[in-house]
């Protein structure tokens, strides 16, 4: 039997077992909710107090489905199945590239971009620009809670103009205008970052590396572990810096120190790789936990 046939067979067996478990653990793969009534009172100087009532829905476990006030949620159940389908579709790439994977990937990219755009519009353009420039109109349209004595902040015309200039890039003529706001952003970002990196990553790290080789406790006894730790840090930093110091030929003592630096770098890369592996396995177990627990109910 070909290897691919065996793998397919095993995947089908796993899939079949999954579906059997859904049948066995009925109620899983379904979402139940409890209706929570909410009441809020609102008043303003110009209108009398009004009471608003609405409901929110709190997800409950399937065990409570027969309790009073608990109902089946079709929309949330559909969401659960769509999430499970998308997870399996993305996993199918491990077997090989396929249309199902491509479709799900495209949906993910599209939904993420659209979501970020909508959130950005409501939190930035509406809240931080429109409401600052036209507060009276914003209060009438989107923010009834906004104070009536807020005045237009004309300083926000600058980001508005810069944004329009940036969008000019899409115009058929004069798209060079977009370079001006872009130059401003690049310059400002570089300036802000330079100072922070100098302060935190350069000066701060230098300060953190200035430490005693041998550490003593208050009663005068030597702290071996702390001393060893400090020594490793100092030797590690120094030898790695020597490795990247190319103005001197790496011969004699410099050669041995730089070689020690390579060892430290290798250990660092190994640790980074191991951390990355741990992260990826955590993500895998997160998705499998969703499939087994929330969807299949195993």
């Amino acid at each position, binding site marked *: 039997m070909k290897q691919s046939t065996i793998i397919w067979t095993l995947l089908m067996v796993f899939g079949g077992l999954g579906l059997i478990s859904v049948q066995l653990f009925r109620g899983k793969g379904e979402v139940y909710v409890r209706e929570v009534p909410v009441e809020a009172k609102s008043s303003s100087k110009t209108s009398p107090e009004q009471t608003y009532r609405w409901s929110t829905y709190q997800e409950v476990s399937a065990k409570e489905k027969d309790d009073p006030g608990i109902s089946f949620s079709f929309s949330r159940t559909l969401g659960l199945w769509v999430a499970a389908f998308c997870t399996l579709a993305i996993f199918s790439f491990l077997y090989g590239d396929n249309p199902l994977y491509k479709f799900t990937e495209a949906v993910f990219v599209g939904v993420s971009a659209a979501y970020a755009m909508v959130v950005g519009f409501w939190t930035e353009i509406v809240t931080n620009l429109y409401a600052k420039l036209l507060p009276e109109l914003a209060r009438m349209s989107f923010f009834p809670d906004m104070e009536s004595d807020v005045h237009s902040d004309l300083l926000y015309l600058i980001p508005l103009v810069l944004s329009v200039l940036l969008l000019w890039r899409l115009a058929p003529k004069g798209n060079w205008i977009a370079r001006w706001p872009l130059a401003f952003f690049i310059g400002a970002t570089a300036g802000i970052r330079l100072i922070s990196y100098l302060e935190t990553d350069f000066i701060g790290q230098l300060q953190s590396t200035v430490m005693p080789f041998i550490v003593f406790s208050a009663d005068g006894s030597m702290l071996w572990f702390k001393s060893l730790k400090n020594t490793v840090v100092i030797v590690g930093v120094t030898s790695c810096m020597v490795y990247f110091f190319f103005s001197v030929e790496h011969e004699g003592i410099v050669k041995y120190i730089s070689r020690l630096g390579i060892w430290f770098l290798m250990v660092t890369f190994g640790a980074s790789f191991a951390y990355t592996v741990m992260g990826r396995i955590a993500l895998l*177990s997160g998705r*499998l936990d969703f499939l087994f627990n929330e969807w299949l109910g195993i």
Partner: protein
Amino acid sequence: MLKILQNLDRRWIFLTMFVAVSVPLIMGTTFPETPSDQVLAVFDAVDNLPDGSNIVMALDYDPASAGELQPMASAFTRHCALKKHNIYFMTLWPQGINMIQGSIDILNDEYPETYKGKYGTKYVNLGFRAGNEGVIKLVVEDLKKSYTTDIHGTNLDNIPLTKNLKNIQQVDLLANVSAGYPGSQEWVLYGSSPFDIPTVVGCTGVQAPIMLPYIPDQLTGILAAIKGAAEYEQAIINHYPDLAENPKAKEGLIRMGPQLVAHVLLISLIVLGNVIYFMERRQGTA
């Protein structure tokens, strides 16, 4: 045998990894965790504050990283709730809004006596702001320059928790959970380091080696990857044993079972790969 191993379809390895992660997950296998010094530093930073202190919780991640970071965010939330701290939620990631909602659900469902119906007095959701590190620079100096309203559009001057908060230098602790840029490093670069704001972070395994050099001078403590989350959960359970009854409070601990088996498998595969390499070299085929 060597020929079979040389031509082994990589999908067998994927399948083995699937089994290695699935079995302990289904069995619910957990292992005891001993909190490290870094994790204890995080625990102490939250726990040593007087009850009802002000904490900014910046959840800068999205559902793609939730498998690794959700246990940390949930553990931070539960620990703060146990201490009855006032929590300011915010995010620099658009999808972070849903992650914040997850933490708010924990507050309302598990600690209703302290938090239910106390929006604005015990916790506030500032939501998302675009601008990456620009937002951090603003909120550490003048919160209301960046955030004029909360996520519901309520003016910050009308919310008791934010009414008198000029900037986040005034809070007692900044807890950040981050999946990348903008996240932990930016909070250290523009927040904790220049302004000496006590900061603890929980980050992905990929970020951990970048963040570790900031300890202890520029960062109080770090939860590195799912291991850090599991140790933190254990530290909280050790101190608040009632939490052991809550299976949701052991998400990280449950995820460490698959970690162990998967790591053993990976180490075995690395050893096997090297054995194959040396066998090929001996035969002169490498």
